[in-house]
């Protein structure tokens, strides 16, 4: 969480660079409920949301539903069922049970809503010792576990690593400018050079 100022996204939307984007925009509450519906095997979710906003005019995926008891109109959003859900968690055991804690957000729903799932973890342990606030995803709803220590970087993994705030700040500079960004893509992503943001 905390993805910064989204310079590249904003450039793509306003100037179509490097190409135009197709957008479907929701509120966080709406998105969370789309995952809930997806995880629940329901085709849609009901919420008090979007009422009076211009978001409803920009997508077919915000509609209304009438309560069959009170007649009240509420917002409806369609279930989200991704082909693949990818999340990062703290650890897994050798059977593939996954344990995560801290702010788990909508991660359980994302896995349960997806046809298949990949969970990257900080480490694999012999036994998932129970701990406060921990959520366990049983192995039988996780398709693959991959060991990727630091897989949340530059964000953090509670109990394993802190947020790399300097990276976010350096990234903001890189992301702000098309040339700097393109150079970063070429050098770091394509040619594998050391990430200048990391050394910040």
């Amino acid at each position, binding site marked *: 969480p905390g993805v910064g100022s989204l310079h590249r996204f*904003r450039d793509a939307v306003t100037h179509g660079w490097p190409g135009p984007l197709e957008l479907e*925009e*929701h509120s966080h509450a709406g998105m969370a409920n789309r995952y809930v519906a997806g995880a629940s095997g329901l085709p849609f979710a009901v919420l008090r949301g979007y009422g*009076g906003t211009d978001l409803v005019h920009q997508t077919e995926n915000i509609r209304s539903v009438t309560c069959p008891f009170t007649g009240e109109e509420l917002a409806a959003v369609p279930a989200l069922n991704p082909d693949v859900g990818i999340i990062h968690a703290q650890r897994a055991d050798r059977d593939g049970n996954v344990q995560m804690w801290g702010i788990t957000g909508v991660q359980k729903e994302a896995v349960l809503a997806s046809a298949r799932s990949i969970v990257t973890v900080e480490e694999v342990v012999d036994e998932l010792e129970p701990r406060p*606030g921990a959520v366990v995803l049983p192995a039988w709803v996780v398709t693959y576990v991959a060991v990727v220590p630091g897989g949340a970087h530059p964000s*953090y993994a509670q109990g394993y690593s802190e947020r790399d705030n300097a990276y976010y700040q350096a990234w903001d500079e890189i992301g702000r400018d098309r040339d700097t960004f393109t150079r970063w893509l070429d050098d770091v992503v394509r040619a594998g050079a050391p990430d200048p943001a990391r050394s910040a």
Partner: protein
Amino acid sequence: MTAARTSPAADVAAWTTDEMMSVAASRALADVGTCFVGIGLPSTAANLARATHAPGLVLVYESGTLGAKPDRLPLSIGDGMLADTADSVVTVPEIFNYWLQPGRVEVGFLGAAQIDRFANINTTVIGDDYAHPTVRLPGAGGAPEIAASCGHVVVVARQSSRAFVDRVDFITSVGFGRGPGDRERLGLRGAGPQMVITDLGIMEPDRQSCELVLTHLHPGVTLEQAREATDWELGAAADLATTLAPTTEELEVLRRLEATKGSR
């Protein structure tokens, strides 16, 4: 944002208009039990309130932390410290569905990139064409439902004629829509924005017209300045008051909090 100016009160240290804004916003949380906090200016003000006059204030962040007690300003709504210090951490669906939606949270504390005379908030696009905006803003986040469902809403935003407009280009979060009765018609159950706190003063909705009216000017700010920084004909309350300047304690705590931003 603007340069520091000396307070008219001689015994108070110099403070910036941003500091005045955060202090004024923190005071809006007097006698409030629970506050749903957006990141940025609202988070600064809410934490200032908790560190000064409102130690029992329950901070709710949309990442799912109920009763977080950060001792520095969180870097994001997902800051691990929020979970570490919370009374309870719940999932994101739960925070919206069980906690925000039923109106359990007294005050929603929101920022705004653009806001209009009826306190509608735009954080989506600047420009008339959604598909080809002049400026793309970060988007809705949790704001539409915070604005809809909290007991009432307090907005914190820097004032300028580009930001305080007659009609927002895009309604991301509803204030009073097009005027009286609109919230009820839309089924929005919270009372909506009751205070908009800027770096120049404080606006409140007129009880009849729902239009934002200036009720306070911060020390050293003139009505002229406030009107210049507003795109509509900004009305002023008959009893237009001057905000109390930040106290030494408020400033000290605020600066200590702000200093934590660079610490990690």
